[in-house]
């Protein structure tokens, strides 16, 4: 193949007889010949006709072969244009000069056609090899640019999706490489309609675009369901089912999902395959590990997926710290892992909570860790509910079809109570009434409170006084899960009634349950305190609605919301 491709070969030789002889030899071997009688002519000929290979006499008038070789190599740039020096030079010093000037080989006089042919062939191989290397390098560079551009576009699109959340809220601090997405790291945060905050730190298997594509549907589900008022369990189920459906088997997403409730002062946690997170109690200094209890999202079928969460009380100022495995899996030069122990040493040495991220980064540097761009950390602190302002929801409909005079009754029975959360549906229905949209947060909080009171204290018969202290708090949620799973009978009824009042209107919500009821009068006598873990629900309901009352021994709650004419 190669010998069939004729080359264009420049012969630079001042001796006319040698030039003629060499031209004949080269031509007979099937190549095209250019000739030059000195170095300057050779450089000019190279400039104009770009031969593939040069046979160069060392000693020539006007410009010698060394200088001509240097100039030709300069002109050739990255391309390999082999230069074979024609020489009867025998001194090693002179041969070294040829190499220094850029010569690739020598041919001694008298010329031997067989050796010359072999040398031309060998040099041509080198030349082609270099050309291939350059071509492939350029190809790789093009692919790389292409990839970076794809990542830029993907990142821009993704940032639009991700930034619909509330990562900029004053209680969130995070640290993430701008391109963490392409290492599979994902951080999302959003307010629920009730003003709770959902936070997700996820880590997809793999790298690059494959790791990033799963982030899109996950973020969509997270934001969509959080905004509609779904709880962690429903959101987790939906995320798991979606990832299971769309991702290949070897791809999944480790994730920790939090629901921070500023009103209840608690955090609900689900950890599937992420490293331990930490719940830092500022009062005691304790850092409670939030251990992974589940398989990652996208592994189990919807039937076997476990959405059970844990709930922990928090005090104002307490923090939840989550991290990706990039932190503890950072390696030093000897392939030693940074590890959990070193992380906990950093915790132990930490005096100023706000300096923690910096201290962890410093510890990673001191450890001699190779810099990784999949190190993600997030810290969420519990503020007073009033310190946060969830963004107002934006509605796109005109309001012409707003329903203003209607009522509806629901009865949710045992099998439904076990697995269905009706609140998002109820809220969506109510938000069709434009006058209620301005108070959607309060509306949702009250609905959520009444519903969970009816379910937990009514149907499940749980005693809210259990939640007096932290261990009782955990016990309470454990019992809740157990009783719900074993539930056979019982119901929660929700009655909604909307009536016009002048240019505004009024909503009456009644929630009834099949439980034993409670001494509402006694609970209501207690002041509107916001400190204790138990009994908060009722005071919250009273704060947020126009009027709230209980009847039927506490089994039936009634609240009213009203609104004035819309501007």
């Amino acid at each position, binding site marked *: 193949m190669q010998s069939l491709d004729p080359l264009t070969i420049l012969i630079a030789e001042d001796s*006319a007889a040698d030039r*003629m*002889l060499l031209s*004949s030899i080269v031509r007979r071997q099937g190549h095209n010949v250019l000739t030059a009688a000195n170095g300057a002519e050779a450089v000019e000929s190279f400039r104009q006709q770009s031969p593939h290979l040069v046979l160069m*006499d060392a000693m020539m008038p006007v410009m010698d072969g060394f200088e001509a070789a240097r100039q030709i190599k300069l002109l050739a740039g990255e391309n390999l244009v082999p230069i074979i020096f024609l*020489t009867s030079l025998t001194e090693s010093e002179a041969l070294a000069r040829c190499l220094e000037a850029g010569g690739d080989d020598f041919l001694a*006089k*008298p010329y031997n*056609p067989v050796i010359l042919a072999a040398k031309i062939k060998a040099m041509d191989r080198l030349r082609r090899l270099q050309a291939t290397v350059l071509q492939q390098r350029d190809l790789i560079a093009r692919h790389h640019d292409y990839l970076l551009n794809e990542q830029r576009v993907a990142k821009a699109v993704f940032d639009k999706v991700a930034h619909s959340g509330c990562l900029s809220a004053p209680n969130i601090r995070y640290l993430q490489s701008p391109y963490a997405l392409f290492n599979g790291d994902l951080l999302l945060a959003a307010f629920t309609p009730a003003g709770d905050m959902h936070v997700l730190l996820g880590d997809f298997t793999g790298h690059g675009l494959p790791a990033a594509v799963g982030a899109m549907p996950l973020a969509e589900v997270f934001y969509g369901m959080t905004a509609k008022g779904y709880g962690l369990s429903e959101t987790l189920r939906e995320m798991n089912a979606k990832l299971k459906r769309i991702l290949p088997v070897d791809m999944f997403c480790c994730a920790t999902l939090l629901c921070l409730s500023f009103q209840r002062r608690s955090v609900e946690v689900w950890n599937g395959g992420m490293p331990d997170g930490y719940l830092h109690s500022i009062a005691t200094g304790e850092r409670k590990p939030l251990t992974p209890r589940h398989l990652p999202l996208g592994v189990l079928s919807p039937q076997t997926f476990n959405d059970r969460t844990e709930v922990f009380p928090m005090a104002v100022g307490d923090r939840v710290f989550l991290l990706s495995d990039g932190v503890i899996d950072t390696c030093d030069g000897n392939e030693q892992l940074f590890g959990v122990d070193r992380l906990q040493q950093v915790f132990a040495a930490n005096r100023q909570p706000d300096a923690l991220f910096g201290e962890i980064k410093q510890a990673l540097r001191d450890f001699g860790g190779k810099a990784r761009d999949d190190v993600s950390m997030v810290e969420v602190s519990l503020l007073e509910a009033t310190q946060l302002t969830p963004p107002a929801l934006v509605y796109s409909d005109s309001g012409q079809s707003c329903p203003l005079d209607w009522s509806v009754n629901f009865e949710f029975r045992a099998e439904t109570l076990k697995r269905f959360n009706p609140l998002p549906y109820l809220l969506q229905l109510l938000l069709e009434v434009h006058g209620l949209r301005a108070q959607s947060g309060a509306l949702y909080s009250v609905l959520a409170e009444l519903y969970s009171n009816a379910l937990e204290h009514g149907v499940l018969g749980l005693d809210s006084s259990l939640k007096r202290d932290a261990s009782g708090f955990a016990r309470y949620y454990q019992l809740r899960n157990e009783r719900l799973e074993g539930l056979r009978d019982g119901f929660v009824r929700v009655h909604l009634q909307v009536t016009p009042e002048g240019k505004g209107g009024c909503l009456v919500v009644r929630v009834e349950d099949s439980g034993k009821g409670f001494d509402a009068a006694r609970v209501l006598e207690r002041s509107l305190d916001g400190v204790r873990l138990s009994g908060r629900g009722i005071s919250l309901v009273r704060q947020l609605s126009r009027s709230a009352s209980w009847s039927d021994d506490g089994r039936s709650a009634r609240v009213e919301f009203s609104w004035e004419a819309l501007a």
Partner: protein
Amino acid sequence: MADKHLDPKVLSALQEVMEDGYPELLDTFIADSEERLRVLRKPEDATQLMNAAHSFKGSSSNMGAVRLAHLCHELEQRAKQKSLAGIEKLVREIDGEFAIVRPLYEAEKQRSLSE
């Protein structure tokens, strides 16, 4: 080898390579050599002498002028070492050797033309 004027094996190889260009090659070498000799007789400096001797050596060896190539090599070495004593004698020897091989090349040319 050095006492031989022309190497017949080289000549037949040259004829094979050059084919119809062989007589022209012989002419070119003769003309080339006269130009080199002109420089050797009156060099401007040692470098010019050395370069001319070097080039003449190369083409002589290509053309099978064994003794001429040997003498040129000798001259090149002396010029390089700046030992100018005996240089003129050496140039005269080269002159003499060329006077011997020149008619041999011309005869060779006639022979090849008559083939």
